[in-house]
C-alpha cells in the first residue's frame, strides 16, 4: 500500500511540474510589458517603481533562470508578494482559505447526499414518474450556470422570503445558500452517475441471490447494491471536487463571500499577478492531491482492489 501511495504521488510530480511551468508562463502571456500592464491606472508610476516591480517579480533575468528561481521559491513555500499590498501571497491567502474550505466541504456534502439519494431513488423506481422527475431535475441541474442558481436562491430565500442572509461569512445560515448553489450542478452529475451505476449492479447475480434469500428490498439496495455502485461514483465525486474548487470563484463573487476564489477574482481585476498565480497553483495542487486520494479510496470501498 505504502509503495502504491509513493508511486501514485511520484506520478503526480510531472503534472505538477507542468502546471508550475504553465502558471509561471501566465505572466508572460500578458500582451506588452507585464509590469506596465500591472501598474496601469496606478498613480505615481516612476521608472524606479517599474524597475523595482520588475526586480521583485524576477523579470529582469533570462526566462529559464526566472523559472528556476520561481520554482525554487515555490518549493520553499514563497509564492511571492502582492503588487498592491506588498504582503506575501501566502499571508493574503491565509485569511481566505478557511472560508473556501468550509464552502467546498459543505457543498460537496450537500451534493453527495442529494446526488446519492436522488440517484438511488431514480434507479429503484426505474421507468416511473419518480425516475423521470429525478432525471429531469438533474438535466436542469447540469444546465444551470452557478451564478444563475446563486441569484435565484438569493432572490427566493433572502430577498423574497427573508429566511437566510444573502452575503457574508460566518455561521451556518450564511453558508447554506452558497453551498446549495455550488452543489446544484454536482448533485445532478452524481445523481446521474449513481443511477446508471446502481442499475448495472442491481442486475447482477448476487443481487438476485440476496433477494432469493428473502432479504428486504431496502437492505438489498442499501447494503448489497449501493456500496458497489458507489465505486464509479467516487471517481465522479473526485473529479467534480475540482469543478467545485473552480466554481468558488463565481459563487464567492455572487454571494460576496471572502475566500480564495474571490481573492483570485479581485486580483485579476487589479492585475495583481503574483496573487493570481499563487491561488491558481494552490487550487491545482489541492485538486491533484485529491485525485490521488480518490484513487487510494477505491481499496476501502472494494476489497477486491489490492495495491500490491
Amino acid at each position, binding site marked *: 500500500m505504502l509503495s502504491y501511495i509513493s508511486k501514485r504521488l511520484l506520478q503526480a510530480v510531472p503534472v505538477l511540474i507542468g502546471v508550475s511551468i504553465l502558471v509561471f508562463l501566465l505572466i508572460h502571456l500578458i500582451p506588452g510589458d507585464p509590469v506596465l500592464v500591472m501598474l496601469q491606472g496606478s498613480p505615481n508610476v516612476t521608472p524606479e517603481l517599474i524597475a523595482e516591480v520588475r526586480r521583485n517579480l524576477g523579470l529582469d533575468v533570462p526566462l529559464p533562470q526566472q523559472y528556476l528561481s520561481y520554482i525554487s521559491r515555490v518549493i520553499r513555500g514563497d509564492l511571492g508578494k502582492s503588487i498592491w499590498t506588498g504582503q506575501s501571497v501566502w499571508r493574503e491567502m491565509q485569511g481566505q482559505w478557511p472560508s473556501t474550505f468550509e464552502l467546498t466541504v459543505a457543498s460537496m456534502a450537500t451534493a453527495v447526499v442529494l446526488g446519492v439519494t436522488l440517484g438511488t431513488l431514480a434507479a429503484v423506481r426505474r421507468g416511473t414518474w419518480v425516475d423521470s422527475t429525478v432525471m429531469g431535475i438533474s438535466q436542469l441541474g*447540469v444546465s444551470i450556470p452557478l451564478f444563475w442558481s446563486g*441569484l435565484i436562491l438569493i*432572490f427566493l430565500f433572502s430577498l423574497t422570503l427573508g429566511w437566510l442572509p444573502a452575503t457574508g461569512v460566518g455561521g451556518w445560515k450564511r453558508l447554506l445558500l452558497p453551498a446549495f448553489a455550488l452543489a446544484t450542478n454536482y448533485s445532478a452529475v452524481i445523481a446521474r452517475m449513481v443511477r446508471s451505476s446502481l*442499475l448495472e449492479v442491481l442486475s447482477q447475480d448476487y443481487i438476485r441471490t440476496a433477494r432469493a434469500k428473502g432479504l428486504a428490498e431496502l437492505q438489498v439496495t442499501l447494503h448489497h447494491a449501493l456500496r458497489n455502485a458507489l465505486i464509479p461514483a467516487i471517481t465522479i465525486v473526485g473529479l467534480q471536487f475540482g*469543478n467545485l474548487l473552480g466554481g468558488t470563484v*463565481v459563487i464567492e463573487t455572487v454571494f460576496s463571500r471572502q475566500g480564495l476564489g474571490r481573492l*483570485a477574482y479581485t486580483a*485579476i481585476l487589479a492585475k495583481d499577478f503574483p496573487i*493570481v498565480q499563487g491561488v491558481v497553483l494552490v487550487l491545482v495542487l489541492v485538486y491533484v492531491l485529491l485525485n490521488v486520494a480518490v484513487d487510494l479510496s477505491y481499496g476501502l470501498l472494494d476489497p477486491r482492489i489490492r495495491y500490491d
Partner: protein
Amino acid sequence: MRRLLKNGSALFGLAILGTIVMLALLAPWIGRFDPIKQNPRESSRPPSADHLFGTDRFGRDVWARTVTGARLSLRTGIVAVAVSMAIGFVPGLVAGYRGGWIDALIGRGVDVMLAFPGILLSLAIVAALGPGLHNVQLAIGISLSPTFVRLVRGCVMAAKENTYVEAARAVGCSDAVVLGRHILVNILGPMTVMTTVALGWAMLIATSLNFLGMGVQPPTPEWGADLALGRDHMRTAWWISAFPGFFIMFTILAINLVGDGLRDATDPSLEIR
C-alpha cells in the same frame, strides 16, 4: 438521424435550440427597440405590452437586448468550440496514430491542462490576456482542447487496429491516405457528439466569464453580462436578470438534450434506460 428524431428529449432540445437560433437570427427585426440606445425616462419598467421583458435601469428594452444577446452568446460558444477543435484535433490524431514518445509527450501535456479545475484555466488565461470577447473565446478554446485531444486519440487508436486499415497499408496507401480516407470517417460520429457537449460547456464558461466582467464590455448585449447588470436590482427589477438567466439555462439545457440524444443515436451498444 432517424434514431435522433425518435428520441423525445432530443427533439424537445432541438425545438428549443431551433427557436433560440431563429430569435437570434431575426433579432434586428423582432427586437422592436435599439438594444443599446439609453432612454432614462423608461428606466426599470416592468414587463408590459410595450416592453415584453421590461426595461433595464438605463431604459433599454430587455427583450431587444435578450434576443440580440443570443447572437453573441451562441457565437461565443461556437467560436470557442471551433478553436478547441482546431487546437486539439491534430495533436490527438498524431498521438493516436503514431503512439510512442510523441503520444506520451502529448498525453502529459493533456494531463497538465486537465489538472486545472473547472473554469480556472480559462480564468487564468483571460486574466493574462485581458478582458474581451476574443480573449474569452481563445481562453475557452484552449481550456477545452485537451478533451478533443483525448477523444481523437482514443478514436484513432481504436480505428487503426481494424483489418481494413491493415489492408489499406498492405496495398501501399500512405499514412495521409490511411488517416484521411479510412480513419477520419470513424472519428466523425464521436466528434459530432463531443462538439455538441462541448458547446454546452463552452457556453456555461463563456456566460460565467461575461458575468464576471471578463468578456464583453458594456453596452454590448450578452446574456451573462446583462444578468450581471441586473443582479443588484433583483428585489425591485427582477426582470433585468431573469430573462437572460432563463435564456442561458434553456439554451444549455437544449444543447445538453441534443448532445445526449446524439450520443444515444450514435452508440448502438448503449442500453436505453
